């Protein structure tokens, strides 16, 4: 994207701030891309002939006589089958040492799908992880984040989910990935022999943070190409959306906007929704499913980033370390898949919804028993049994190292019920108890 001969070159900046430069220019469109002394920039404000450009990599060292050229278009990405197996930066330039790709140029951050043209998500995505498949089934066209503290193995779990899900394409949008994590993904995908169905857009911690803002749109524009043009099922992985939101707050702060909760811009909800709502089941059969990561600070979900995310996404998956069994589990209380109702008991066995609910309810009773124990009270026989149940349930079903099919998960559930409880205590519809109870 170097300047071309016929383009007008401006050389007089009137204003420079940490993130933006201003100049007098004509015939410039809103959102248009520009190059300022070789650095990528985008129009963020026009007032009369004064144009304000946001320079993605910052304005350090930019002089008032910097060369500015306008590219005449909003940010774009080239799409074609050649994307598969490649790694790109936030501008869509290859970073894997390979050649530039050929393809059709598309604007990123394009229009939304007309809601009446959407199909209802209906295809179960099995991951083998019971904490997900049993309690929080994923469905194609869904958008769901992992809420995890930074010390939890969310990238590993996400890579597992991605590889086990039977998606035609996996698109990784990495924002503020550490170089180690970037290499981790590269290696895992390579080892699984899956590289040819994976496309990656990566901004690492070595790159300027504001560039991250382009990554989700890049990844999702590529996803739309495969889902719409090729009718493929596409799984988009976005990690870490907290760092994306941080970049938003940096920009809004530099633009002198009034911050709302937790120093986040007032438009955070709309900014995140614009990305997550790209998840869709198309009528032609293609789909985009988004699995994201939102890192938390000390498990606090009331912070503006996870809070707004939770209102947008169709559930959230919570990782938590269970000290009783010494494993990371998918927390059944705080995790939720909103779309599970569309598939459980329909594409899975009829007893799925009731088994799921009963197990979680009994697990909640165990939590109460634990509180009693911690407060030094005597436990009843029922309390003791719930605690035993909770331990097995956690180990055999909730742990993230579980990898079995859904029927097996249900069988394990019934076994645990029979081992620890009476039929009445489990409280499941009689017809199902008659059919599945393990004597």
């Amino acid at each position, binding site marked *: 994207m170097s300047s071309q001969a016929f383009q007008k070159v401006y050389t007089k900046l009137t204003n420079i701030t940490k993130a933006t430069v201003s100049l007098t220019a004509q*015939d*410039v*469109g*809103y*959102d248009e891309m520009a190059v300022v002394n070789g650095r990528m920039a985008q129009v963020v*404000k*026009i*007032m*009369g*002939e004064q144009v304000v450009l946001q320079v993605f990599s910052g304005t350090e060292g930019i002089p008032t006589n910097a060369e500015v050229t306008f590219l005449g278009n909003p940010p774009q990405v080239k799409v074609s089958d050649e994307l598969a197996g490649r790694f790109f930066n936030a501008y869509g330039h290859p970073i894997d040492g390979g050649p530039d790709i050929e393809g059709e140029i598309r604007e990123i*951050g*394009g*229009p*939304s*799908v*007309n*809601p*009446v043209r*959407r*199909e*209802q998500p209906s295809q179960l995505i099995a991951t083998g992880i019971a904490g997900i498949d049993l309690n929080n089934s994923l469905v194609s066209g869904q958008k769901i984040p992992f809420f995890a503290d930074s010390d939890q193995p969310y990238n590993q779990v996400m890579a597992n989910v991605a590889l086990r899900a039977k998606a035609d394409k996996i698109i990784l949008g990495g924002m503020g990935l550490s170089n180690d994590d970037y290499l981790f993904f590269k290696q895992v995908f390579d080892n699984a022999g899956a590289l040819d169905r994976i496309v990656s857009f990566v901004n690492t911690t070595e790159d300027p943070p504001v560039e991250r803002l382009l990554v989700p749109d890049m990844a999702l524009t590529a996803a739309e190409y495969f889902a719409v043009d090729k009718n493929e099922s596409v799984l988009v992985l976005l990690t870490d959306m907290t760092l994306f939101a941080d970049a938003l707050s940096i920009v809004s702060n530099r633009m002198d*906007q*009034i*911050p*709302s*909760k937790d120093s986040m811009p*007032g*438009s955070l*909800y*709309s900014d995140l*929704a*614009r990305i997550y*709502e*790209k998840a*869709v089941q198309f009528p032609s059969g293609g789909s985009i499913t988004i699995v994201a990561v939102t890192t938390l600070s000390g498990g606090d979900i*009331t912070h*503006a980033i996870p*809070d707004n995310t939770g*209102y947008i996404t169709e559930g*959230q998956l919570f990782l938590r370390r269970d000290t009783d069994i010494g494993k990371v589990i998918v927390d059944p*209380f*705080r995790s*939720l898949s*909103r*779309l599970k*109702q569309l598939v459980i008991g329909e594409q899975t066995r009829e007893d799925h919804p009731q088994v799921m609910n009963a197990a979680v*309810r009994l697990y*909640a009773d165990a939590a109460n028993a634990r*509180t*009693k124990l911690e*407060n*030094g*009270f*005597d436990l*009843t*026989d*029922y309390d003791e049994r719930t605690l035993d149940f909770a331990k097995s349930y956690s180990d055999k079903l909730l742990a993230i190292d579980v990898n079995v099919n859904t029927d097996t998960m249900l069988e394990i559930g019934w076994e645990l019920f029979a081992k620890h409880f009476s039929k*009445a205590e489990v*409280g499941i*519809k009689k017809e199902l108890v008659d059919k599945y109870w393990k004597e």
Partner: protein
Amino acid sequence: MEKNDKTTGNVSGIIANLVVVDVDGPVGQNEICFIDHGDERLMAEVIKVTGNQAYVQVFESTRGLKPGSKVNFEGHMLEVNLGPGMLSRNYDGLQNDLDKMEGVFLKRGDYTDPLNREKKWNFKPLASKGDEVIAGDWLGEVEENGMPHRIMVPFKLEGTYTVKSVTGEGEYTVDDEIAVIEDKDGNSISVTMVQKWPVKMPIKTYREKPRPFKLLETGVRCIDTLNPITEGGTGFIPGPFGTGKTVLQHAISKQAEADIVIIAACGERANEVVEIFKEFPELDDPRTGKKLIERTTIIANTSNMPVAAREASVYTAMTLGEYYRAMGLKVLLMADSTSRWAQALREMSNRLEELPGPDAFPMDLSAIISNFYSRAGYVYLNNDKTGSITFIGTVSPAGGNLKEPVTENTRKAARCFYGLSQDRADSKRYPAIDPIDSYSKYLEYPELQKSLEKNMGENWLANVLKAKDTLLSGKEADEQINILGDDGVPIDFHERLWKAELIDFVVLQQDAFDKIDASTPLERQKYMLEKVLSIVDTSFEFKNFEQVGDFFKRLINHFKQMNYSEFKSEKFKGFEKELQEMLKEHAVEAKEEQAV
């Protein structure tokens, strides 16, 4: 705001969807304009005027827009078209018919007609030549999805008019003249089936707005029984994410006893709207036997659609509701979520660099919310017929904190509060409406009390209060048990706790995904409440506290099986009989007499 020469202008500044326009003539606050951008025309609304500069919020993306672009002002505020054919339609926040748009993706500047201009309607006159009429009076009617759709004297007309002629019964399109009316100066006005109305203005063509007095049945037990909403009432449902706001709203919109349901999906998930699109055409309306979609209009402005149109969407929905209310219909209006609407206001207030109120929301948020809620209500029309808009909005409190500005301000405006609790949702006690914190102010209305007495029996109100007291007493007992331990309290505390749990599990908790349990008619609610309360009134004898829990768990299990069975079916009666047997194990007969 009517002008002869239309004002025009040129774009001079752009910051996201806020555009500054240099104008050459008068402009009005909230006036609509169109910005030319290549072949596209982008709709926008004036939100501030300084000198000859108008600040407009664009209802579309402004990507690529350049200064100098031509702007045409329309001379009116944001209006909707009102006429037959709006039911079963899917509109965006500006009342564009989404089904008429081509392609999978929304195209910028694609504005479609909300009405079908070709379809012929069978018109029947209601007024006659010589009648004196005022705005909102019924001139005739057509049948829309089996419901009478009245053609009214345009709401914008002021004063009294005389009917000069009304067309005879026959087939007409919405644009055909169906009547001519004459003002007192002898000017004739032609009336068609379509009229326009600015969405931010309430339609007030009614005679009187009394206090609501009639219960609106929703089939949701913890609403109807414990904290009922009324026809023409207002309520709101705040809840952190994942507590079941949307499931509850969908349940109410499916089951409520209303003629018309208008759903404003305001800044929420697109897939939730798709669920309505797909389900409602399949589901039967139990009252009419028709499909639910036939009584429903959906205003979908999902979270990824333009923010400015999100703000408009709730007003569009309310205006449609007022239009149907003026026909003497019972309208239920649901908005999910009003927080997104408030956030849209915040985004724009921020771009306008207004001084912010709490959490950066605009200072007048409270007034805006109150104003909006006040448009709901039960009304007596000029012809003594009645109509109502019952409005239930959801609120998505930031961080689940009910002290945040949108929740606080909505609390001032709405009369029913259905607070969803994270704890209840975590333990899967759905619907997660908190039985202690939630309230319905209508329960204190003598008007409603009277009608409940008449329709639900003399003891109903006392029973409801008893259920509430039992729940509270159970909560207190639970707290004591938690502090002192199971053994540290008298057995009686456990009994109190479990009697409350009984009400919780049998009356409050309801399985929205079970065919039978999802909706409970009032008659069944009454039966079950009385049944449960008879147990609450019974004195029991237990040897130790463990017996209490075991016994009540078995009771609850039986009651749940009853809830899952067809009312008064063999199965239902079977469980009921077993239940009666079970009671004998611990009931103290003599004391029972005293308690009653």
